[in-house]
């Protein structure tokens, strides 16, 4: 008589599943980069209509910053070093002594940044950084005076922030290089 072999219950050993899962987990942990993009935000102006005249700007409200390819800086035809730019800009924008040479009011001030085609990008960004730093200092000071907290601590798009932004609008013009 043929006796049927008794089968044992087929069990898959699941104890190593955790190990496999851990291995995969560690792989994804290592490869994941939770990186945040940082940078200087700007808004480009709409393209210029060639027939339309650019709006008139009073000379005293315009701060012309020229940067050449060696990183030398001219501010309103006056050579300055990069480290002086920020303080000069703050003086120009806020104009505490009502100098007739400087901006009438902070919201009328326009900063024009012009470089050469050969200027390295890092020099251009350094200059833009200085301009941004000047505006940040001014906004922080205004925010502290009015609300007792720095500008960054204000709620985004709150009326308070809008007010500070209106006091010191960032009017930065990136001029096209000649040649």
């Amino acid at each position: 008589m043929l006796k049927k072999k008794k089968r044992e219950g087929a069990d898959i050993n699941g104890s190593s599943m955790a190990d496999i899962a851990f291995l995969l987990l560690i792989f994804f942990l290592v490869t994941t980069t939770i990186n945040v993009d940082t940078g200087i935000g700007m808004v480009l102006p709409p393209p210029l209509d060639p027939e339309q005249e650019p709006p008139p700007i009073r000379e005293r409200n315009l701060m012309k910053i020229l940067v050449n390819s060696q990183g030398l800086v001219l501010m309103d035809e006056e050579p300055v070093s990069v480290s002086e730019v920020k303080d000069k800009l703050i003086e120009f924008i806020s104009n505490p002594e009502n100098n007739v040479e400087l901006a009438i009011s902070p919201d009328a001030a326009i900063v024009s940044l012009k470089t050469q085609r050969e200027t390295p990008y890092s020099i251009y960004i350094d200059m833009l950084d200085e301009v941004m730093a000047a505006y940040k200092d001014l906004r922080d000071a205004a925010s502290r005076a009015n609300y007792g907290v720095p500008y960054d601590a204000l709620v985004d798009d709150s009326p308070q922030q809008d007010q500070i932004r209106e006091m010191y609008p960032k009017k930065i013009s990136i001029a096209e290089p000649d040649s």
Partner: protein
Amino acid sequence: MANFKKKQAGSKQEIPTSAMPDVVFMLLFFFMVTTVLREVTLKVKLDLTQASNIEKIEQKRLVSYIYMGPERLPGNQLGDDKVQIDDAIVDDLGAIRNLMYDKLIEEPRLIVSLRVDQNSEFGLLTDVQKELQQAGTFRINYSTKREAD
């Protein structure tokens, strides 16, 4: 000689580990979902410059990247400055206008992040910016690293 018998605990004390794979799998799925495996293969050399007054881009979905830098040539050599959008190098700068316009239609709140090598010249950047103006993508961001204070 007296035999000492170790006293054994009456009941077995074991931590049930049957739920461990579930926990680990949960973590695994989280990291699998958050990992972005497909990064753009850069065809240009990119060495970002540093700045201190920078802002974060919170909504990454809105961002579209334009890369600029010296082209990577076979044999570890660097060529002229080129513009790369998505996975391809754009030789004809006039094409940027249409490319970016299409992206703007898809995502009206588009932010263009310009990732430019620190040694590339401003001239190329201004040409690209002119194209962006024509395309109507006005919100840009000069991507920089945070400067150590």
